């Protein structure tokens, strides 16, 4: 078995070989390298046709009209375009926006920027299972609310928000509903003919496509309008100027085509692996699953291991590539804000590990992961004074710690 084992599919996925094969046909002199905006020759026409096929493939996965798909550089740009674009276009109607504390930074920071520009933003709490309470959302809505932005699948804990119900609520109040769906394509069925979603962000590289490409769904009926954030040649119906990256777009289209074809069987296979992983770990003492146990995607499993520290756990798990909620692994000093929003203590947030399973994960890799996790937890708890205290029946909350 090749080590380390990749279990970080929520961070990024490898490009599917079928996608890479396709992508390479759109780069060199022998391939279709043309600018899709060139109207005067065959090179341009061919590239344009390839882009339009990709646009259809993306629309098909989510049951939208191809004319509702705008290509961007990734989900971060899509989120920025959707939120700022809609807030700015509809600013005369109101300047109040609503989002959730567990959103991706691309949403939260776009909101922060709008706050600096005079908008008001409500950051909703989530319940302990990571889900939004619809009543709290309803209570936050005001006559001057223009945009609600709530993600579909959470990138850290994998919970799936009820975007169907939230959509109905927003539509009934005439509020634009944006959904960051970077983590959900190919994992959860999306039907935009039925969902009352107005704007939806997609990413290429979370669905076995390349990095650097994404898309934004912009509803035509009822029509949603955006203030462009990037100005230039008026590409993508004026919503996003810039020469289209044909090779990346074609690759994203192919990856979404494969996702549509294989989603059902792939998710069934990943569910079996996820259950195998959790069954192999759950009997360790003081282990907690973060986020709702059922309303979540099988690919993401976030677990806290009490009385061991996150970064040392990552070091002990060096043969598996996973993410941690610990501050020690990131530039900031705060532990994961998503886990803190669920009400986890700093300690449990620090000692959390996200295992994300994907297309190329094998049963053998899962079995090896279970073995490594057991060894790591045994070793670190043997070394942990907190574990000793817990075993001696000391309530750690009653100890007078010297914070530093």
């Amino acid at each position, binding site marked *: 078995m090749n080590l380390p084992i990749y279990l970080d599919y929520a961070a990024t996925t490898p490009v599917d070989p079928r996608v890479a094969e396709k992508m390479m046909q759109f780069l060199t002199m022998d391939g279709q390298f043309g600018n899709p905006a060139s109207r005067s020759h065959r090179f341009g026409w061919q590239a344009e046709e390839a882009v339009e096929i990709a646009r259809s493939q993306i629309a098909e996965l989510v049951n939208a009209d191809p004319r509702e798909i705008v290509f961007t550089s990734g989900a971060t740009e899509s989120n920025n375009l959707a939120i700022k674009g809609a807030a700015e276009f509809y600013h005369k109607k109101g300047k109040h926006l609503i989002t959730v504390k567990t959103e991706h930074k691309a949403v939260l920071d776009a909101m922060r920027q709008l706050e600096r520009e005079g908008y008001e933003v409500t950051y909703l709490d989530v319940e302990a299972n990571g889900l939004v309470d619809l009543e709290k959302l309803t209570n936050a809505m005001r006559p001057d609310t223009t945009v609600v932005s709530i993600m579909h699948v959470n990138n850290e804990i994998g919970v799936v928000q009820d975007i169907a119900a939230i959509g109905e609520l927003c539509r009934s109040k005439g509020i634009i509903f944006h959904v960051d769906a970077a983590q959900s394509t190919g994992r959860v069925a999306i039907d935009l003919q039925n969902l009352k979603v107005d704007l939806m962000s997609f990413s290429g590289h979370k669905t076995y496509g390349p990095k650097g490409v994404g898309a934004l769904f912009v509803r035509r009926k009822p029509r949603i309008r955006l203030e462009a954030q990037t100005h230039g040649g008026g590409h993508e119906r004026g919503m996003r100027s810039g020469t289209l990256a044909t090779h990346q777009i074609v690759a994203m289209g192919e990856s979404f085509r494969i996702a549509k074809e294989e989603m059902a069987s792939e998710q069934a296979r990943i569910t079996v692996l996820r259950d195998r992983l959790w069954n192999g770990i759950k009997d360790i003492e003081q282990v907690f699953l973060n986020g709702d146990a059922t309303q979540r995607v099988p690919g993401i499993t976030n677990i806290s291991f009490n009385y061991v520290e996150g970064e040392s756990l990552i070091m002990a798990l060096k043969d598996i590539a996973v993410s941690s909620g610990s501050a020690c692994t990131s530039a900031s000093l705060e532990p994961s804000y998503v886990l803190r929003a669920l009400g986890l203590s700093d300690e449990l947030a620090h000692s959390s590990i996200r295992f994300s399973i994907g297309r190329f994960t094998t049963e053998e890799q899962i079995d090896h992961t279970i073995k490594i996790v057991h060894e790591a937890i045994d070793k670190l708890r*043997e070394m942990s004074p907190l574990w000793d205290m817990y075993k001696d029946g000391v309530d*750690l909350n009653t100890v007078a710690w010297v914070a530093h």
Partner: protein
Amino acid sequence: MAYSNKVIDHYENPRNVGSFAKDDPSVATGMVGAPACGDVMKLQIKVNEQGIIEDAKFKTYGCGSAIASSSLVTEWVKGKTLDEAQQIKNTDIAHELALPPVKIHCSILAEDAIKAAIADYKQKRGS
């Protein structure tokens, strides 16, 4: 996090992990840090009649450099008098382990652990 080989070595093969019996009068304990901050160190020293640290053990909840810092100080304090051990500086620990700047607090915590253990010993002895 790119750690030095010394940190990796102490992390993978920590020296002197464990505990002494708490009721042994020659044993003193220093516990510093807080779980909420991500590191807690427990350092125990065993001091003989001549005031020399004969043995040391640690248990640490913390990141790789916190574990390495505490492992290192158990090696350093052994054979030293209490006064000599009192002189160990966090900068020496950080230098020895080539700790990155964001991990300097681990070496400070290790120095605090030594001082706390010595203070505990002195208190036990009533001096």
